[in-house]
């Protein structure tokens, strides 16, 4: 790794040259920052990756089956595996999607599964992201630039090539395409992940479009051009459910496409990922994923969840009340590292206040044991320090379910923090899948 470290400055210059940034809103102002990159990669052996791959494929297959079931027959509720409160009171459940059947029955085309490697060398799933998981573009471009800056590193280390992500994305879009072009639909230049939207459009050969470029007529989505309108067959939307169609969801949305849901419900366009997927990546539903795997696939879950308690259940509530000081509490409505509270960091009064909040709205929270996950070396000011890091694996579902042989490793830059999100100051690393 020393060669890569020796080339840190050149790598960072290359990242700046290609505008590898993310945006952040603070105090009402939008700022773009370079996404801090650490050249020391996470390395996963071929054997570990195969095991991880099998577990991730299994999990995503079950989650897809769950979403289909929830918006159709609801067997899993009727059979008492998942309580209906966890479905219908989830902010990610969209009644408007009842009966919607996406092309080829794929709901979560691009799944971002967050994992950590415990000190016991076991992978633990932290959360599933089935709406618009972001981050693949960063290790994708970082690999290209690292190879350019330090070719000797890649001559010595045989690493699975991750530069096929654009092709995998295109293949996924093509598979579900209902007839027409592929479009990456962005909320615009001032979105936090705008770099990613534009880069993935380029890499997959799709057209990058904003709401004003798209319109629906006779339940068909079109791209507005300087010639005749062009039909859109697959829409990789990077706009959240609430805002994609002002006539179906948030009426004040200016970044959506009126009547998009009409075109989607008619089967005339594939929306990637499908609206309504949030019902399956809710932090409360996470608890039930191993049960889903068993229910839909008749298999035991290959990957473990972090030990989780639902205060909704009386036994779990008692445990949480008695052990709050060493648990991490998560607000199911929050994302991006927000709403995560470590019991040990609270004063006695704050702990009591949190207990009351949990008792008042048990469905709103989950509690987890703090997974003692492995730290990773990070280069900082010329020396190596240890920092908490997670892994977001990307699983693409088209004709088959494929795990991208790479992933986004995020690390905390604060030595005392477990929170790795870029919006909270975290950095990123490339993820190497070793060929041997």
């Amino acid at each position: 790794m020393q060669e890569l470290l020796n080339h840190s400055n050149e790598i960072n210059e290359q990242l700046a040259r290609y505008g590898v940034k993310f945006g952040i809103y603070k105090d009402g102002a939008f700022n773009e920052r370079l996404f801090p990159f650490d050249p020391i990669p996470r390395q996963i052996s071929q054997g570990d990756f195969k095991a991880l791959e099998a577990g991730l494929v299994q999990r995503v297959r079950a989650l897809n089956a769950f979403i289909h079931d929830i918006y159709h027959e609801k067997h899993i509720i009727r059979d008492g595996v998942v309580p209906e409160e966890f479905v219908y009171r989830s902010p990610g459940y969209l009644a408007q999607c009842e009966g919607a059947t996406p092309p080829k029955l794929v709901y979560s085309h691009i799944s971002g599964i967050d994992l950590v490697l415990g000190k016991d060398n076991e992978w633990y799933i932290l959360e599933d992201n089935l709406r618009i998981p972001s981050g693949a573009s960063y290790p994708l471009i970082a690999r290209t630039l690292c190879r350019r800056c330090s070719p000797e590193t890649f001559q010595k280390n045989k690493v699975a090539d991750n530069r096929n992500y654009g092709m995998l994305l295109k293949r996924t879009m093509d598979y579900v395409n209902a007839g027409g072009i592929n479009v990456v639909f962005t909320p615009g230049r001032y979105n936090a992940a705008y770099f990613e939207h534009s880069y993935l459009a380029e890499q997959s050969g799709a057209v990058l479009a904003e709401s004003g470029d798209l319109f629906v007529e006779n339940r068909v989505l079109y791209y507005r051009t300087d010639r005749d309108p062009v039909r859109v067959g697959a829409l990789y939307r990077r706009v959240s459910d609430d805002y994609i169609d002002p006539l179906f969801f948030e009426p004040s949305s200016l970044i959506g496409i009126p009547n998009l849901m009409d075109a989607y419900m008619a089967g005339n366009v594939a929306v990637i990922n499908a609206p309504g997927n949030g019902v399956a990546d809710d932090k409360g539903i996470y608890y039930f994923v191993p049960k889903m795997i068993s229910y839909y696939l008749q298999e035991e879950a290959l990957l473990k969840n972090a030990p989780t308690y639902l205060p909704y259940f009386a036994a779990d509530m008692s445990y949480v009340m008695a052990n709050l000081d060493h648990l991490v509490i998560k607000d199911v409505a929050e994302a991006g590292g927000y709403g995560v509270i470590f019991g040990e960091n609270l004063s006695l009064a704050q702990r009591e206040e949190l207990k009351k909040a949990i008792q008042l709205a048990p469905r709103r929270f989950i509690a987890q044991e703090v997974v003692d996950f492995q730290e990773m070396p990070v280069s900082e000011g010329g020396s190596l320090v240890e920092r908490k890091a997670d892994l977001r694996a990307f699983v693409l579902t088209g004709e088959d379910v494929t795990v991208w042989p790479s992933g986004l490793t995020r690390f905390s830059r604060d030595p005392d923090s477990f929170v790795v999100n870029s919006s909270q100051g975290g950095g990123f690393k490339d993820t190497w899948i070793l060929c041997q």
Partner: protein
Amino acid sequence: MDTLSVSKASRLFWLGRYYERVATTLAYLWNWYDRMIDGAPIDYAGFCSALDIDCSYADAEAFMHGYVFDGDNPVSLRAAADAMLGNGMMLRETIGSRTLAYLELAVSAFESGKDSVTPTLPLQRVIDCIMAFRGSYDDCINDENVRNIIKCGAGVERLSLYLRLGWRMDLVQPEVGKLMKRMNRTRLVPSPDALRLLLAVKASIPPEEKASVLAAVENLFKL
């Protein structure tokens, strides 16, 4: 795909206008930096008036810093460079990351010159990067319509600056010819009145007619 959305066509056009604004104006100001070494006066008030921009600078030095480097000043060259990059960023999949990188480098060079005691050196890098961008998009973009919309934007901006800053008409007229050729290789629809007037431009016209030529240039495309 050989079709473009209307918004993309507009961004391509404005990308051309902004890069040309930065490159041509920097070239124009180049010798002012040299004159300032000897304490020779520079007519920055006349320059602002010609460009119809506010002139609230305390002195020549404040003008050179504020007009060139101050990104918070909406009429500055730095703001134009940011707008150039902003348009480019929204066209990544159309112009390509490799070409877009030259705009990133131009803005980085601007940033590095802000506090430099030798601002002409980073500014020279800005011009170098813009020239590299011009070569890169001309070479890498296969779609003739796309290439020529950018060139139309650049042509309009160049003519606008030449007319405002008092270039001789025998230098302006060939630029009109170039713009017409580029326009004919796009699907842009020009304003008929503006087009008629520009096609009639001669190498020598009375000064009072320059304003109508400038208006025709500015109104040629509604983008």
